[in-house]
C-alpha cells in the first residue's frame, strides 16, 4: 500500500518536474528568442535575457544570436576598371535586427551566411570593376608623402609620389556597404560594416 502511494507520488513529481522543465527556458545575454506554436510564430520576439515561461509542449523556442556576427569572405582576384587584377579579401560584420523576418526568411545562420556570400561577393566585384586600382588602394585624396627633414639633397628628396585619386578606399567601401545594405534589406538583416581590401 505504502509502496504504491510512494510510487504514485514519485510519478506525479516526475510529471510535474517535466512540465515545469518544458515550460521554462532561459535566454542568454547573447540571444533572442522566437516562440513558435505548432510552427507558427506567436507574440513578440523575446529580446531580454533571463528565465522565461512558455506553454509546455505546444510552444517551441527558437534562439537567434543577438551579437554582432562575423562574415569573412574568401580572398579572390578581381579585375579593376584599368584591367588589373587585385586580390580582395573582404570581411563584414552584421547583426540580426529583425529576428522575426530573419526567422521566417532565412531560418538559420548557415543560409544567412550564404546569402551574404552572394550579396557581398557580387557587390564587391561590381565596386572593384567600377574603380581603378589606385582608388581601391589609397584613402586620403591629398596626402603628401613625408620628407625627411634632415635630407636636403635634391636627389635623395625623391621619395616617390602618390598617385592622385578621386575617391579612395573608404568611399569604395561605403559604396559596397550601401549597395549591399539595400539588397540585404530584403532579408531584413543589416551588415554592420564592411571591409578589408588587399
Amino acid at each position, binding site marked *: 500500500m505504502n509502496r504504491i502511494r510512494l510510487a504514485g507520488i514519485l510519478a506525479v513529481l516526475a510529471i510535474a518536474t517535466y512540465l515545469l522543465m518544458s515550460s521554462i527556458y532561459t535566454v542568454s545575454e547573447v540571444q533572442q528568442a522566437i516562440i513558435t506554436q505548432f510552427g507558427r510564430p506567436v507574440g513578440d520576439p523575446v529580446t531580454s*535575457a*533571463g528565465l522565461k515561461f512558455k506553454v509546455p509542449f505546444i510552444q517551441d523556442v527558437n534562439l537567434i544570436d543577438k551579437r*554582432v556576427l*562575423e562574415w*569573412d569572405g574568401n*580572398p579572390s582576384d578581381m579585375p579593376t576598371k584599368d584591367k588589373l587584377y587585385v586580390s580582395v579579401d573582404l570581411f563584414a560584420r552584421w547583426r540580426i535586427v529583425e529576428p522575426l523576418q530573419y526567422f521566417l526568411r532565412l531560418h538559420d545562420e548557415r543560409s544567412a551566411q550564404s546569402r551574404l556570400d552572394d550579396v557581398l561577393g557580387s557587390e564587391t566585384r561590381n565596386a572593384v570593376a567600377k574603380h581603378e586600382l589606385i582608388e581601391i588602394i589609397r*584613402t586620403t585624396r591629398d596626402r603628401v608623402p613625408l620628407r625627411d627633414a634632415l635630407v636636403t639633397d635634391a636627389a635623395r628628396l625623391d621619395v*616617390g609620389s*602618390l598617385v592622385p585619386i578621386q575617391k579612395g578606399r573608404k568611399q569604395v567601401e561605403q559604396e559596397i556597404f550601401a549597395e549591399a545594405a539595400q539588397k540585404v534589406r530584403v532579408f531584413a538583416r543589416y551588415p554592420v560594416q564592411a*571591409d578589408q581590401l588587399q
Partner: protein
Amino acid sequence: MPSQWNNPGPGGPWGSGARPDSEIDKVFRQGQDKFKQFLPSGGPRGMIVLAMLAFAGVGVWTAYFTVPSDSVAVVQRFGKYLREVPPGLHFKLPLGIDVATIVPVKRQLKQEFGFATPGAGDAYQTSRDPRRETQMVTGDLNAALVEWVVQYRISDPVKFLFDVREPRGTLRDVSESVMREVVGDRTVDEVITIGRQEIENEALVKMQALSTKYAMGISIDQVQLKNINPPEAVQASFNEVNQAQQEKEKLINEARRDYNKVIPLAEGEKDQRIREADGYRLKRINEAEGDVARFSALLAQYSKAPEVTLRRIYIETLQDVMPSLRSKIIVDERTRGILPFLNLDSQKADRP
C-alpha cells in the same frame, strides 16, 4: 557517486557526528557497511536518500568558483547578466543557475600579423596564413611585406562577452584592414624608411576608433611595426639598387677628393702668376714714367738753352760711349811719316 559519500565534506552524510573523528579507516569501513545496507536492502527510501545526497554533492561542487588575480568573472543567472566579481573565491547559485565566465582583463594580450611566434596558447594570436596578411600594396603601387604586432587588453568584459561574437577575430580583421589602409596611403619609401613611427600612430588611432565602433570591449595599447621588406622577388634587385646607390655615392666622394687635391693647387698657381704679372706691369710703368720725367726735364733745359744743352748731351753721350772702346788713338792730320804703333798683343788679348 560513492566517493562523495565517503568524503567527510560539508554537505556529506557524516557531518552530523555519527562517527569517531580520529579513525579514518573505521569511518571508511563504517561507510562501506552503511552503503551496503542502503543499496541492496534499503529499498526506495535508500535510493531517494542516495539521489538527494548526490544532488547536494553536485550542488556544493558547482556553488563556488575562484577567479585568478589577472581576471574578473562575469556571472549570469539564467543567462541574464548579474554581476562582475573581482579575483578571489566566490559563491554562486549551483546547478547551472548561475554561470561564471572568467575574463582575463588585466592580462596584456597580443596579436601577431605576418609572422608567428611558435607555441602561442591563444588561437587568435597568430594567423593560419601569415604570408597572406603580410603582403600589401603601397600608395605608389609598389608591394611591401609588412609585419606588425597589436598589443591590447580586454577593457570591458561585458561588451567583450555579449556584444560581438568573435571579438578577437574581429580585432584581427580590423587590424589587417586598418594597416592596409594606412600603408595604402603611403609611398613604399615612407613605409620602409622614415614613415614607420607615423604609421604606428595612425594605425593605433584608427584601430581604436573601429574597435570602439564595434563595441568589442577591447582597448588597443600599442601597434608595433616589425620587419618591413620588399617582396622576395624584388629583394635581390632592391639590394642591388641600394648597392648601386652606395657605389654612386662612393664614386662621387672619390671624384670630390680628387677635385679637392688638384683645384686648390691650380688656384694658388693662378694667383701667383697674376701677382707676378701685376708686378711686372707696375715695374714697366714706373720705368717708363721715370724715362718720361727725365726726358721732360731734359726738354725743359734744352728749350732754355739749346746750344749748351745739345753740347752737353753730346758730351754725355760720348761719355757713355767712349768707355766701351778699349783704346782710341787720335793722330794729328798734319803729322806724316809716323808709324802708327799698334799694340797688337794687347788688342789680341782683349779680343780673342
